[in-house]
């Protein structure tokens, strides 16, 4: 099974980075989250309900839909804030990439640790631009809003191809497929990483890799 990889590119102003990333990541996670599974006897299970919420962006003319889960929102915001800080501190001309990877865990025998097999990776390349005046910023607000709309359409297009999705797991294996740590929704196992590229376009030698879901630290 090959890992499906999708790349999205956006050019935004510095203060728009956070909202643009949130919009894209939440749109993907909306489609990759289900309700909580409740296993019953005889191997059947029922699924909880996923609520949704509209979020207006302050610096972009755009509204996106996210899953109604404050826990999940906090995790994503934290990751995006770290990425934004790294982008700001890098001293480069503001290019970076944030990746959202969905993976499955495959149990291995001791002493080998569990394997993480990605099945879908979304990479969002960000290019930060500097604008001179307020008029340009206003145009940028609208343009970035339109671009994000196109990205949402791209995401929906990919998702509705109904390519590989992990099989629904039994109760004992649910943690190998889904992130069951949240109390209201259940996204597929995911991790968010980012890279900042310097002006030469190559990764910085001290690549900062922060694993939000660190499965290797078992």
């Amino acid at each position, binding site marked *: 099974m090959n890992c499906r990889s999708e790349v999205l590119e956006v050019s935004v102003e510095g203060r728009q980075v956070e909202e643009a990333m949130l919009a894209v990541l939440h749109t993907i996670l909306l489609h990759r989250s289900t309700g909580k599974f409740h296993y019953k006897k*005889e191997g059947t299970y029922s699924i909880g309900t996923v609520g949704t919420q509209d979020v207006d962006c302050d610096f972009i003319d755009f509204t996106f839909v996210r899953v109604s889960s404050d826990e999940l929102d906090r995790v994503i915001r934290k990751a995006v804030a770290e990425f934004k800080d790294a982008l700001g501190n890098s001293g480069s001309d503001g290019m970076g990439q944030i990746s959202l990877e969905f993976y499955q865990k495959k149990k291995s025998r001791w002493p080998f640790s569990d394997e993480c097999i990605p099945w879908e990776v979304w990479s969002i390349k960000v290019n930060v631009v500097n604008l001179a005046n307020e008029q340009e910023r206003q145009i940028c607000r609208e343009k970035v809003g339109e671009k994000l709309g196109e990205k949402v359409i791209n995401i929906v297009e990919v998702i509705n191809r109904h390519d590989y999705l992990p099989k*629904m797991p039994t109760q004992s294996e649910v943690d190998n497929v889904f992130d069951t740590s949240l109390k209201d929704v259940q996204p597929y196992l995911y991790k968010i990483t980012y890279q900042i590229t310097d002006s030469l376009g190559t990764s910085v030698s001290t690549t900062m890799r922060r694993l939000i879901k660190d499965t290797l630290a078992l």
Partner: protein
Amino acid sequence: MDSDLSSQDRKDLDKFIKFFALKTVQIIVQARLGEKISTCSSSSPTGSDWFNLAIKDIPEVTHESKKALAGQLPGIGRSMCVEISLKTSEGDSMELETWCLEMNEKCDKDIKVSYTVYNRLSLLLKSLLAITRVTPAYKLSRKQGHDYVILYRIYFGDVQLTGLGEGFQSVRVGVVGTPIGTITLSCAYRTNLALMSSRQFERTGPIMGIIIDHFVERPFTNMAHMHPCSYRTPGEDEGGTYAGIEDSQEVCTTSFSTSPPSQCVCTVSQAHFKTPKPALMATLKVPLMGLGVSQQLYSSRLSYQTPALGTVDLCHPTAFTAGAHPHQMVVPGKEGGVPQVPAQPNHGTAAEHCRIPSCPNGQSPQPAQPTSCSSEVKTVFCDALETTFTRKVGAFVNKATTQVTTTSLDLPFAAFTPRANDLEVNDPMVHPPPSPAPSSPLQGSLHSNSSSHSGGQPQDDFVMVDFKPAFSKDDLLPMDLGTFYREFQNPPQLASLSIDVSAQSMAEDLDSLPEKLAIYEKNIDEFDAFVDTLQ
């Protein structure tokens, strides 16, 4: 084709498609209400949340959807469309987008109905949630209000895209293959948003010289037949005319099996929450092929209140208040409860507003009117050549309002011009009733000016009214606004700013410096404490 599909699977599939169509309409309409939508996630399945998504059901929208479907399902050659249009306060309208739920013949026989199809339909609804916020109509709908409103229309049959203008764009939300065909959900939206007036709205002269109703709640008061689609919390409307999906006979409690996929178990239980109202059943029985029904969406302040955050929080239905408008939808020209609608959904007239009877027996609360809204409005205008209206007298005159009738309404404020048969002699604006000695200058001046006319000629062409702006009087300083303004227009300069004074006091300041320094040093602790409070 259907021989491979078990009857249970077929029944389940039909049910899924039906509720998918209803939820699709809910999502689209709610996305155009002009407010942010918010629903809560719930870890425990309630059984009434189809496709494991919390999508609230607006009863009127469900009712309209079911009416449009009329017991049928979207199928091959039978598409369900939701048309979103914009209507300005001047009567111009424009189609913005059309959402189409279609089915083609491409079948996926191997797909599992109760498992894969269900989950993919759920995914498609999530995609619809995302895409409805991306098309241009979303931004327009968020700004609707006094200048324009957003309307929706549901129709069944052939997709009509001619009203979207040239160069319209299409976006495909998604597809789901089923054993009986492939469901496709797409949206065609207008790109040319230049508003073109398709008909000239004839402007008549002012009918009422004075606008009596100052506090207009709705921007379209002249279009009395158009009513907002008010959102009521369940149980608050008149006898629950509209049965929501939750009250319907079927509830989805889907269980999935973790056994090998071939042994998927799906139980869809039926529960009767409420006996359906006779009105609803009667409506469903009426054969209404190609029914085009228009409804009007209003911004939130007209249809329902929002919490302070500005988000429609559907987690707490008690936050809603019932819409201020108890108006139902009534089909014009209706007789005996059977709506007169064109056989084909008609673009021009279907966008006109239709009404649904509020009473189950369909007794129309108003006499039969022409179907087009413009002629209805004209009827109101034409009949008002001679009208009786009440003139409100000023706040400071204590006399009951007078009824004034005039046959000529060409001049605004025509009622105030004196006529031969005018009641000016008794007009309190000119001749106030005799009052006791004025208790305040305010009252005194009013009366004094008016009384100067009491002995005057009642047949004067002009009525002299001294300019007495309200609340401009001061008991302490008896002067009028104009005098006050003139007097204080050029105030004298502040003494401390004049150069002569400062030059003279410079020497004095220098002499007093040592004394001042001594005082400050004595109070040094006080100053330090003050500085601390500032930090």
